């Protein structure tokens, strides 16, 4: 096997010449920077990288990456990317989406891409609002939210995106936030390394229509008390002095406790590779919104056959058995007769 050297690149190589047009102060800028700065480290080629998006503020992302890119239609990015990734297993395909795009109009495509385990890195920027259409509530907005379309408060019970992804049996599920570049990059790197569908929820501040939605947990002073870092193999604990932790009760449900009251050994050890998704799901239920201590990091990372690879294997197998397809034989595959 010959190894072709990947050229060294910098952030600049991965940035397109298009002017970035998000609102000043939007969390999308820091996510874009994190991705552009990470790409040179991933050992991949620009021409083999494709960003696919749907519609929404987040969906402008591909225009700013100096790679191949496809800005498609609302909610459909996972479907379009599925066709691309399965027919071109040589490519690195990223999907960039928002909460409305992924969980409302595109919910169906998202769950199916996840359950099939198509080799996609799906980044879902969750700002709990519709930004591009100027401020309606989204499927992740909290109940009772007052927006332009819900002047008396939203009646909808929100989705927990991590629960949805785990419910769809995604093989890689993580959460990060736009205030911590290092953590974002770590999650994106892991998502990229994972074979199959990777789902990363990124808490993203929309400073125009939903400013400060995550401040209570992602603000510098709040993180220690409000973010529960998940580290594989480690007991799950948080708090300024690591004084809080997570235990599993007798009935299986998870609970936040004072470490002092139960002892360190009682804490739940995080296992990303746990085959049964139940535990990861339970972790996702610890918090029902960004006002409570919220787990962050990789919830689940398990191996399952990748869809495109399996599809290719069926083609390869058929060709190994029957050759590469003879048109004349095909046309004669049902009974035929000859007239002289």
């Amino acid at each position, binding site marked *: 096997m010959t190894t072709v050297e990947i050229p060294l690149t910098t952030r600049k190589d991965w940035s397109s010449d298009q002017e970035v047009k998000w609102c000043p102060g939007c969390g999308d800028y820091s996510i874009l920077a994190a991705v552009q700065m990470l790409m040179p480290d991933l050992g991949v080629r620009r021409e083999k990288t494709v960003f696919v998006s749907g519609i929404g503020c987040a969906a402008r992302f591909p225009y700013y990456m100096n790679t191949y*890119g*496809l*800005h498609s239609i609302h909610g459909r990015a996972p479907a379009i*990317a599925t*066709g691309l990734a399965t027919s071109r297993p040589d490519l690195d395909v990223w999907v960039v989406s928002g909460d409305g795009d992924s969980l409302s109009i595109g919910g169906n495509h998202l769950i199916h891409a996840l359950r099939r385990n198509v080799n996609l890195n799906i980044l879902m920027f969750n700002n709990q609002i519709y930004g591009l259409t100027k401020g309606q509530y989204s499927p992740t907005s909290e109940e009772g939210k007052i927006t332009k379309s819900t002047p008396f408060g939203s009646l909808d019970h929100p989705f927990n995106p991590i629960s949805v992804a785990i419910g769809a049996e995604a093989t890689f599920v993580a959460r990060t936030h736009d205030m911590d570049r290092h953590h974002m990059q770590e999650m994106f790197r892991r998502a990229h390394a994972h074979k199959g569908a990777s789902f990363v929820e990124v808490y993203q501040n929309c400073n125009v229509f939903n400013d400060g939605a995550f401040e209570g947990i992602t603000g510098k002073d709040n993180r220690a008390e409000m973010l529960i870092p998940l580290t594989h193999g480690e007991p799950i604990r948080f708090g300024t002095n690591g004084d809080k932790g997570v235990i599993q009760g007798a009935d299986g449900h998870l609970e936040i406790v004072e470490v002092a009251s139960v002892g360190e050994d009682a804490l739940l050890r995080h296992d990303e590779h746990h085959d049964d998704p139940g535990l990861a799901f339970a972790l996702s239920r610890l918090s029902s919104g960004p006002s409570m201590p919220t787990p962050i990091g990789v919830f689940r990372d398990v191996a399952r056959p990748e869809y495109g690879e399996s599809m290719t294997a069926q083609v390869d197998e058929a060709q190994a058995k029957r050759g590469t*397809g003879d048109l004349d034989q095909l046309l004669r595959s049902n009974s035929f*007769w000859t*007239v002289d």
Partner: protein
Amino acid sequence: MTRQTEQLDRVVIRFAGDSGDGMQLTGDRFTTASATFGNDLATFPDFPAEIRAPAGTLAGVSAFQVHISDHQISTPGDAPTVLVAMNPAGLKANMGVMARGTTLILNVDAFDERSLAKAGYAESPLTDGSLSHYTVYEIPMTSITQNVCKEAGVKPRDAERSKNFFALGLVSWLYTRPTDETLAWIHQKFGGKPQVEEANTRAFRAGYDFGETAELFDARYEVRAASFEPGTYVNVSGNTALAWGLIAAAKMASLPLFLGSYPITPASDILHELSKRKEFGVRTFQAEDEIAGIGSALGAAFGGSLGVTTTSGPGLALKGETLGLAVSLELPLVVVDIQRGGPSTGLPTKTEQSDLLQAMYGRHGEAPLPVIAAKSPSHCFEAAIEATRIAVKYRTPVILLSDGYLGNGTEPWKLPDTSTLGTIEPNFAVAPNHENADGTAVFWPYLRDPETLARPWAPPGVAGLEHRIGGLEKADGSGNVSYDNTNHEKMTHLRRDKIAGIANDIADVEVDDPSGQANLLVIGWGSTFGSISAGVQRTRAKGQQVAQVHLTHLNPFPKNLGEVLKAYEHVLVPEMNLGQLSRLLRSEYLVDAKSLSKMQGSPFRAAEIEAAIAEILGA
């Protein structure tokens, strides 16, 4: 007894029974035996939407009509000359199309009181004299089948399921069909279940022997082989031919074929056929919905595959938004619509041509795209290649229209010489195509070929051609997002002109007007070809003049079409819709195109075309 064998030039047989009676299989087998025997033929499978509608009811009747002849034919026949009815409902549902003097072969075992009541007979038609104008054969098919199967240890209930093979054997005898092939087929198909194989074989033989020994029939009939051009033939359905056409087209273009599709009647057979053919590098993807079907196909097209999605009317509606994106992205894509009765779920298993205007206009914005239509089952092969050729050459989604009648109907097809199919050039972009002011070479995804107006197709993988495209309006040339109002108008014109320009790249319509004296032109599109041709021929046989044109290209129309239309005093447009093509012709060419409409879920009869022509010609 000695019997004569009478020669017939053609016969139309209709097999009818319950949905669970295996009528489609029986008809299909009879057809294959006739095809290999050398007859020309056309078939019309006619079945309900329910897989097993309530047994014995009219709603549950499944029928298969086959027309075999010793000369070239183009339709499954206006009316059957023989009806094989496995139960009272099968008889009742079809009596409307049986002319006096025709033959009825009835499974009398099924004409018990309960079944008669279920079919809505107050009195048995066997005894009330209502069949006195027909030649009726009352044959206890179920009990004979059960008897011969009993010897093989098959329980009566299981044996009952083989009665369609009895009917097949009997009709095979009556029409002197060869039996070896059918017996071999039974062995191949049911070999895995020895008892079923045994029962079906016994039933088939019993039916054949019954004809020979029962002294019920005065004569056997023979329909001689038709004279065909030398060559290799297969009996092919439209859906199979279409699937094969897609495989051939992908091969001609050296592109991997990707089918993204969602199951829908009557298009699913294309998905089934293609999913069997992975050795051709075909990737089939059964998507979560119609939208993902076309979305995945478009994604694959972006990646350099021949992207295809197959559907029927309701699915096409769901694909509308993505079609708009495909028009904007200017990527090759083949969208196949096997039309059925609509709107909504409509008549899922019945044929119609009512998606023409949806194909033409069913999108948001100004979103023109080429539309082509297959005209016979075997023509679906060619039509698939033509759709691909246009899609790839012009970087555009193409809608290929077929319908339930073409999709399921079959006809003998002389196989093409595959070495002469030619090639389709994908002409992928390989290098930057534009120089910036500072001298750097860049790739402009919307810099068009001046002749075809096609843009470059640059699948990911080539360094230096990285580009971003999307559904937002793009600047002419660079393809960057542009909200500039005059640029939008220019791009709208360019997209229109690109599609209109395809008229320079398709053949003129051929006018079939042997005498050159006709003043009536009958023009059709799609699956009406057979019926219109037969109606036109009947008119000519009466000594009258009529011209015929049949369209494969519906957008753009062939260049000479306007001139052709204007040369005739009368223009008649038979369609299985409320006049969609006639509306297009009227608005495009300002001609008085008269619509002949039929919306009954079945193809035109030749007689209906003939009558409509006669009305105009005043004969």
